[in-house]
């Protein structure tokens, strides 16, 4: 039997492997201490609601980034895996996009990111079910922000209402602000000029955000060592986040 040449078949995964992407992230699991500062910073930046004890016990917590940790081996010889911050991988080949019946989960051709268009979303939750990383969260209710919590809303981010799927946007509002500033000053966005809320809050500098299409950027410089890997690489989703472990 003739071996299948993915490039010849035009398989989308094989082609996507070559695509560079615009924005990317590097997460060093050896540096991560699991302090959850990124989780808190993300919630503050992106107007993420606090669901309360009852909904959290149903597994309806709203978090765009979470710190995962797994057990390895059998009890009593249990070994903990390193902390693993998990957020939207902004796959080039995202499984969430083709399943949305209303095109609310779409790919941004301009920024090469996965978008969630809140005003299109009707809440079928197909995207969350098809996401291999389980990073999409659903607004089961209109969550209250009692005084004075409403004063800390970020005006650059939509406050999502009930029945809407949401996920990490790579802090698209910050990307836009930086691009807008750069354009006003007539230049390109410099690497390290701005960063996402999680990367900004990380005390260990384990999360680094930057441009993938600039070979001199910090993200690309760090991506070179061989200890980097991508989450569920075998699925061919081509994530934009590279993880480092045991370096």
């Amino acid at each position, binding site marked *: 039997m003739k071996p299948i040449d993915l490039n010849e078949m035009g398989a989308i995964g094989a082609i996507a492997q070559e695509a560079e992407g615009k924005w990317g992230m590097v997460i060093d699991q050896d540096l991560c201490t699991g302090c959850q500062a990124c989780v808190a910073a993300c919630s503050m930046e992106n107007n993420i609601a606090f669901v309360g004890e009852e909904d959290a016990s149903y597994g309806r917590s709203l978090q765009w980034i979470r710190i995962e940790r797994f057990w390895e081996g059998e009890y009593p010889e249990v070994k903990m895996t390193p902390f693993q911050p998990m957020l939207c991988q902004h796959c080039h080949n995202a499984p969430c996009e083709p399943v949305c019946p209303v095109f609310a989960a*779409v790919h*941004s*051709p*301009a*920024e090469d*990111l996965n*978008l969630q*268009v*809140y*005003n299109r979303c009707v809440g079928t939750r197909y995207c969350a079910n098809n996401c291999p990383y389980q990073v999409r969260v659903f607004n089961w209710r209109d969550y209250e922000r009692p005084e004075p919590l409403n004063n800390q809303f970020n005006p*650059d*981010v*939509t*406050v999502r209402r009930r029945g809407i799927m949401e996920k990490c*946007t790579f802090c*698209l*509002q910050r990307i*836009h602000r930086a691009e*807008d500033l750069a*354009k*006003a000053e007539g230049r390109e966005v410099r690497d390290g000029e701005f960063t996402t809320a999680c990367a900004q809050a990380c005390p260990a500098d384990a999360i680094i955000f930057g441009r993938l299409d600039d070979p001199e950027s910090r993200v690309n410089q760090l991506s070179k060592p061989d200890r980097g890997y991508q989450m569920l690489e075998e699925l061919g989703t081509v994530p934009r986040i590279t993880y480092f472990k045991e370096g």
Partner: protein
Amino acid sequence: MIKNIFGWLFSPLGRIALLIGGLTVLSLAVWGISLTQASPEQPIQFPHNRHVNFGIQCLYCHPGASRGPVAGLPTQTKCWGCHQQMQITETSELLKPLVQAVENNEPIQWVPVAIVPDFVQFNHRPHIAAGVNCEDCHGDMTQVTIAENPQVFNMGWCLNCHKEHSVDNPELRTKLLDCGTCHY
């Protein structure tokens, strides 16, 4: 049976009652629609036409438009900068709220007229930088007193302009027609 119940409608008085009832419903509907179209109640009956005809630039009172997302509504101190030198400020009934606001050091609670929904992230700066004039979206202010919207700010209207401005620039077109440009 039906005729017994509605028989009175066919009497002369019944027809007049029917006519009055119909007119009432119609006028209520017209009034309701006109309410949705009317400009909101403002603390000061601000005459845009007079200020523009004096030659004051839009950006003098709404300076945010050239540098950021929000154009801004002027504070009472900005009004006072010119108005304290004018005779009419002391005599005019319409300017009483301004004088009070300045004396009590209270902000004027302007009601924004040109608004977009919460899920739209609009930024004035790139529009001004691209050469769009204020009146292209907000209408000719020499014609109105309190600002009115000449059109509904909906997505089809936004996209029409975005398409027209990017016909011969594919890169710009990608950016201008991208969902993530306005919705995040």
